[in-house]
């Protein structure tokens, strides 16, 4: 027996019904590279309740340099959310060893605050290779978790200071800045860093350095606006002391409210899925492959209509088209 594949519809129903074992199995399925499993996964996603994936819950990304305190802040946020009666799922992406391919999934330890709480579900993922501090499975897994939880939070690998790809695949992205490291500010100023929706300077307990970083950030941000018109707040907090966490949770919620108020919420989720598809295809086939599909712009336009439940189906379709294109090119040679 090589783990029999589950019935996709039954699995989707169980996940929506918040069955924890089913959710774990679904995540395993979405991780499974075998082709039968991929088909099953596609059918599973398709069977998830569309309204949850399109309009419900809050999908949050948390990113920032290594050791800034992403996991510690997550732990603190979990407590606040739980007090507010929200159910929380986490996808924690950890680096894997470039040499051995093995990985130590350590974020979970830092998030331990969740103890034995059944309304908190943490899945770690190894960043197997690139994907800008994420992992290709993040999007389908996030969707799955949205079917059962109020908040889904994705912690990225502590990537460099300017890549925050996660911001393209979440409703709201929070950047955790390290006090006294001017780099993120420089990148923001120079406009080479994707602008997050909320910036938080962690470790305010250490004092002066944190306050300085915060005020520099605020000055920089006054000149920078989110292209859609959201005014990015910069806050400070301390995961260690638990200070500033309520305010951080409020700021994240405020961005979600803003998206809804401006009628952008659903469009944003749509865009996230397109970003994931394009990124995933680019990882696999490079620029050459993208050109075979008519280039990024055309692709995004075409993807604006794909339903949220079908990312894998769509991916496989596009993948087939690229492969076909390759074959035609080869035949020409």
């Amino acid at each position, binding site marked *: 027996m*090589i*783990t029999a594949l589950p019935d996709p519809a039954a699995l989707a129903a169980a996940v929506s019904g918040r069955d924890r074992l089913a959710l774990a199995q679904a995540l*395993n399925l979405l991780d499974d590279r075998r082709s039968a499993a991929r088909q099953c996964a596609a059918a599973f996603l398709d069977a998830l309740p569309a309204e949850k994936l399109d309009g419900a819950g809050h999908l949050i990304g948390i990113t920032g340099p290594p050791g800034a305190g992403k996991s510690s802040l997550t732990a603190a946020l979990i407590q606040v959310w739980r007090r507010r009666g929200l159910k929380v799922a986490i996808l924690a992406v950890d680096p894997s060893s470039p040499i*051995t391919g093995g990985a130590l999934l*350590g974020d979970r330890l830092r998030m331990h605050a969740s103890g034995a709480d*059944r309304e908190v579900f943490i899945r*770690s993922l190894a960043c197997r290779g690139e994907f800008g501090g994420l992992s290709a499975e993040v999007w389908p897994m996030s969707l799955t978790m949205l079917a059962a939880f109020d908040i889904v939070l994705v912690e990225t690998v502590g990537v460099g200071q300017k890549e925050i790809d996660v911001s393209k695949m979440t409703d709201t992205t929070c950047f955790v800045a390290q006090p006294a490291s001017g780099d993120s500010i420089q990148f923001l100023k120079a406009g080479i860093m994707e602008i997050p929706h909320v910036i938080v300077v962690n470790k305010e307990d250490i004092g002066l350095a944190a306050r300085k970083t915060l005020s520099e950030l605020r000055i920089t941000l006054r000149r920078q606006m989110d292209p859609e018109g959201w005014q990015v707040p910069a806050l400070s907090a301390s995961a260690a002391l638990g200070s500033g966490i309520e305010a951080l949770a409020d700021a994240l919620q405020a961005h979600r409210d803003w998206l809804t108020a401006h009628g952008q919420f659903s469009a944003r989720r749509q865009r996230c899925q397109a970003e994931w598809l394009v990124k995933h295809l680019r990882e696999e086939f490079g620029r050459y492959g993208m050109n075979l599909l008519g280039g990024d712009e055309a692709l995004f336009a075409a993807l604006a209509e794909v339903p949220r439940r079908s990312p894998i189906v769509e991916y496989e379709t596009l993948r087939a088209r690229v492969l076909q294109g390759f074959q035609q090119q080869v035949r020409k040679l």
Partner: protein
Amino acid sequence: MTTPIKRDKPWLMRTYSGHSSAKASNELYRTNLSKGQTGLSVAFDLPTQTGYDADHPLARGEVGKVGVPICNIGDMEALFDQIPLGQMNTSMTINATAAWLLALYVATAERQGASPLQLQGTTQNDILKEYLSRGTYIFPPTPSVRLTTDIISYTVKNIPKWNPTNICSYHLQEAGATPTQELAYALSTAIAVLDAVRDSGQISADGFEQVVGRISFFVNAGIRFIEETCKMRAFGEMWDQMTQERYGVQSEEMRRFRYGVQVNSLGLTEAQPENNVQRIVLEMLGVSLSKNARARAIQLPAWNEALGLPRPWDQQWALRMQQVLVFETDLLEYGDIFDGSPVIAAKVKALVDGAAAEMARVQEQGGMVQAIEAGYVKRQLVSSHTERMRAIERGDLRIVGLNCYKETEESPLTGGKDSGIMKVDPRAEREQIERLEAFRAKRNGTEVKAALANLAETARSGANIMPASILCAHAGVTTGEWSQTLRDIFGEYRAPTGIDIPANDDSRGVRAVAIRTQVTKTGVELGRPLRLLIGKPGLDGHSNGAEQIAVKGRDVGFEIVYEGIRLTPEQIAKAALEEGVHLIGLSVLSGSHIEMVEDVFDQLSKVGLRHMPVVIGGIIPENDARMLKDKGIAAVYTPKDIDMNGIMVDILNLIRQAHDLEPVAVA
């Protein structure tokens, strides 16, 4: 006519002991004292050390197992029944709950009619090494260090003959530290503690010399006994210089490096355990040969250290080793026999220089507390231990009977019907709970409440914790209540695991690569990379084995989930489910493996994962190993299984077997 030879006074001889109940331990202590032991060294059970009462769910399987359970003053009085505390010298290995156990000790002494001025002994009270090795911490570092400084300030003023803290390098060596690391981290810890006492404002400037003079150390002595001799001389030199330069201590007396020892146990083997006797004796030389760097107190492990808990006879044998050295040899008749040796001086200098450099790295990070919180120190220890394990596995570090000269006759030592170890009476836990319930029923509830409210108030205000704790002791507060009150205020902590170290050179070796290839292949066959959960259920803090298995697993290509020590079986099952692992590996060294395995299986059934393969490693006697397999454990590993690559292949094949795949062979 011959003049009688002038001999130095022997050091204090102790045996670290305690088990089952206060009453049973009291009997043991009195027997030991009658055999010529000159001080007491109390081993507490894990619930007492981590602040839980015997009836707390987390205490299950651990009550009275590796030490004596002390839940309240009733137990403490029973422990020292007919032992006059005014005259005794008692060492208590207690850390997170040190203030509480000292309060119980003081209250017991008061009830015996002794004055605090008479009390002599030691509370280990070194919390920082708990985060690095020993594992019985509760609160985060900052409030923990405050409790440490409270004890120091209080005893210096009120119990002047007490050693309020024993800065420990012992446990660092047991977690893999090199001599240089031992020196550097112990002295950095001393700096953190002394700075904290100074900054707390509880001690006047002219009283500070007194504080420095009361600091003592608890050191390890490994098998490389010449180097260990040099390490002890280096400790003395560095301490003298540090206390003079950093703290301006004028009196030479107050700058003296005072230390006690337990010799190395990490190197004591399960294979041919009789060889441990030679090791223990040689290790004792490292801390006794050089008069100017001689230990003040020594306790020795027993020959059967790696098999399980020692019986009274095993402990007696260890005590006799000291007595033979002290009373039969001429060791105590000479001055220092190393002074003036250039060989020794050069080695000492090398150690001092190395340690000073490492201390500077710690200070650069803001000091020992910060370096621990950042995970730096723990990573250094795990790296050193990994080096050691790999050297043993390769055979470069030779250990007689373990990786060379393995052929042996049958041992008459392990044959008996107790298999050569002590078995704690399984009724001990039940009986302790009954005693605790009876005690609770008898006490005055209003008084208890008031004492706890006062404790909480003191904890919040920042006033010294000791007077409020002594009040609690007299009022009949329990260990669990005292600790929970502080947990609510200070919060709880999980220390960094230190396993996030770079891949070792051996992970590029032929065998590792071959295993990795198979691990990856199986991952492809099963659709996704293979995942292991390494779990430490219960209160057991022995993390070395789990850490080494985790690092090795990563190095051969597994994805590893490891959340550190002290998880409940429920948390382990939860993590196994959420993380979608292929196999669970448990590590239990404290002796509670049967209870833990039963509980983990129960919890796995509850979450629907009872079919998952589970292996276990640790101190597991052969009979128990069979029992565990009957319960459904797939494989059992013990200290003699040093072929870590082999363990990885087993694990791979267990996963394959669970998915109906043929096993693979890796040459």
